[in-house]
C-alpha cells in the first residue's frame, strides 16, 4: 500500500511541478503549485509527519497560496506573450540541471541504505512531539522566529505604502 500511495502522489507532484513550469498563465501555475503542496502533504503523512502535513496544508496551500492568487488577481497578471530572449541561458542551464538531477539520483540510488525502507507508522511526529521539541530544545530559535515575522510584517507594510 505504501508503494502505491507513494507512486501515485509522487506522480501527481512531478506532473503538477512540470505544469507549473510549462504553463504561461500565472494562475495556472498557482493552481499547479497547490497540487504539488497537497500531494507533498500526503507524502509527509507517509513519512510520519502528521503535524507538518497539517501545517503544509494550512500554511502553505492555504495562507501563502491565497496570498499569491490574491496578488495575481490584484495585478491582473496575464500570460507571457513574447518568446523568451534568454535562449542561451536556457540552452546552457537545462542540460546542466538535468545532469545535476541524473548524478544526484544515481548517487542516491546507489549510496542510500537499502536495508531500511520507509515504513508507515515506524516514526510519527505529531503535534505533541513537535511541540515538545520546539518549546524545550529549540526554544531560542522559535523566539527569534517571532522577531523575524515582526520584521516581515513591518517590511510588507512599509513596501505597500503609497509613497515608494
Amino acid at each position, binding site marked *: 500500500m*505504501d508503494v502505491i500511495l507513494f507512486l501515485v502522489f509522487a506522480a501527481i507532484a512531478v506532473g503538477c511541478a512540470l505544469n507549473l513550469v510549462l504553463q504561461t498563465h500565472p494562475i495556472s501555475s498557482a493552481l499547479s503549485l497547490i497540487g504539488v*503542496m497537497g500531494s507533498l502533504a500526503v507524502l509527509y503523512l507517509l513519512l*510520519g509527519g502528521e*503535524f507538518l502535513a497539517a501545517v503544509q496544508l494550512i500554511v502553505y496551500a492555504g495562507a501563502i497560496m491565497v496570498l499569491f492568487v490574491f496578488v495575481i488577481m490584484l495585478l491582473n497578471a496575464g500570460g507571457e506573450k513574447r518568446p523568451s530572449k534568454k535562449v542561451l541561458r536556457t540552452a546552457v542551464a*537545462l542540460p546542466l540541471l538535468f545532469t545535476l538531477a541524473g548524478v544526484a539520483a544515481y548517487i542516491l540510488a546507489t549510496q542510500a541504505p537499502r536495508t531500511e525502507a520507509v515504513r508507515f507508522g515506524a*516514526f510519527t511526529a505529531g503535534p505533541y512531539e513537535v511541540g515538545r521539541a520546539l518549546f524545550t530544545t529549540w526554544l531560542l530559535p522559535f523566539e527569534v522566529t517571532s522577531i523575524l515575522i515582526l520584521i516581515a510584517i513591518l517590511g510588507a507594510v512599509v513596501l505597500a505604502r503609497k509613497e515608494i
Partner: protein
Amino acid sequence: MPDLTHLLAAQVPLSWYLILSVILFVIGAAGFLIRRNIITVFMCIELMLNAVNLSFLSFSHQLKNLDGHIYSFFVMVVAAAEAAVGLAIILTVFKNRATLEIDEVSSLKL
C-alpha cells in the same frame, strides 16, 4: 494474485523519497531560470523550498529524529515571511514599472 499482494506489502526505499526531492528541486530551478513572469519565478522558489522540506522529513524518518521536522517547520515560517515581503516587493515593482517581466527590471545590472 501473488504480484498484487507482494506490491501491497512492499516498502518504499528511502532513496525514492530523496530522488523525488531532487526531481522537484531541479524542476523548480529550471523554472526559476527559464520563466520571465516575476510571480511564476517566485512560485518556483516555493517549489524548491518544498522539495528541500521533503528531503528533511525523509532523513528525519530514517534517523528516527525530530530535528528534521523542526527544520522543516522553520523553513515554512521563513517561506511565509518571505512570501509576504516578496509579494509586497512585486506590488511595488508593478506600481513603479507597470510590468511583471523580470528582464525589464534590470536597473541594478552592470
